[in-house]
């Protein structure tokens, strides 16, 4: 019998609340803290949150204001090597959870790819350098007319 991969979720009232937020806390490869430490830290905050210990770090969900506060506190443990990302599905949702739908969830592949540059991203944040960012601007009309005239003259001289 094939597995049911499109089961209906049974969302709680809290999970259906528009003010509910879900955050993934991802440790970079050069992090000086472990998953255990960040999970313990969040539990010690004594906020009404659901905290899940995962292979990449932790997942935290609850009211938006509490989640933001928890993320802010956890970042202090290692500001350059703790990264966060919002997530669409609640923790353990059967539509995404590996325990129900077999194989890695879709977002895993992207996280795996981005994890490869997280160490360098953390180093770049730690040692910032000043760079000049040039924003593209439209060519002034007079310059454009001159360029068009030059090209036309060049083509005319080649033909003759």
């Amino acid at each position: 019998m094939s597995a049911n991969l499109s089961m209906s979720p049974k969302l709680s009232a809290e999970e259906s609340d528009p003010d509910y937020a879900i955050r993934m806390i991802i440790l970079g490869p050069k992090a000086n803290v472990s998953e255990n430490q960040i999970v313990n830290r969040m539990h010690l905050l004594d906020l009404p949150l659901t905290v899940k210990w995962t292979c990449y770090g932790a997942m935290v969900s609850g009211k938006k204001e509490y989640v933001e506060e928890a993320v802010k506190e956890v970042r202090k443990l290692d500001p350059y090597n703790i990264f966060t990302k919002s997530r669409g599905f609640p923790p353990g949702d059967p539509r995404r959870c590996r325990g129900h739908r077999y194989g890695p969830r879709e977002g895993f592949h992207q996280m795996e790819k981005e994890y490869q540059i997280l160490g360098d991203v953390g180093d770049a944040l730690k040692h910032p350098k000043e760079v000049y960012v040039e924003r593209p601007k439209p060519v002034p009309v007079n310059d454009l007319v001159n360029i068009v005239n030059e090209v036309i003259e060049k083509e005319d001289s080649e033909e003759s």
Partner: protein
Amino acid sequence: MVKVAIYPPNSLVLGDLIERKGHTVLALQKAMSQKVRDPEIDSPPMNITEEDPLKGLKYAAIEVPSGVRGRMAVIGPLIDDAEAAIIIDDAPIGFGCVGCARTNELAMFCLRKKNIPKLEISYPTNRDETFDMVNKINAFLDSLSEEGGN
């Protein structure tokens, strides 16, 4: 605080860097979250209904495949809200939930034609390029703060 659209729209690195600078990131996950956690799910499991391709008509013509229009129904409103944009070219992460090449092209076209501050850089392939990317993104985000979102 400026609303910044990103491409790829669910990027971890871009989303994190933008939030570190105090701006709002217009991430795909937030738009999807509203859809999949709706108490009245009309079409389980994902709540993608026949209304979505219709909403996508604002961004793509009727001849365009319904998959593109359905994706644009979610990504399009994010682009409409954008006050600035960061686009990463050649990102190897254009698969998974953003795995449609035609949607990627259309979404990037919509972002490029918008008259907002934009930063377009290539996906880094080595350590130096990663440093360059992070510094450029931070400089761009700082310039947005100085301009006050204009």
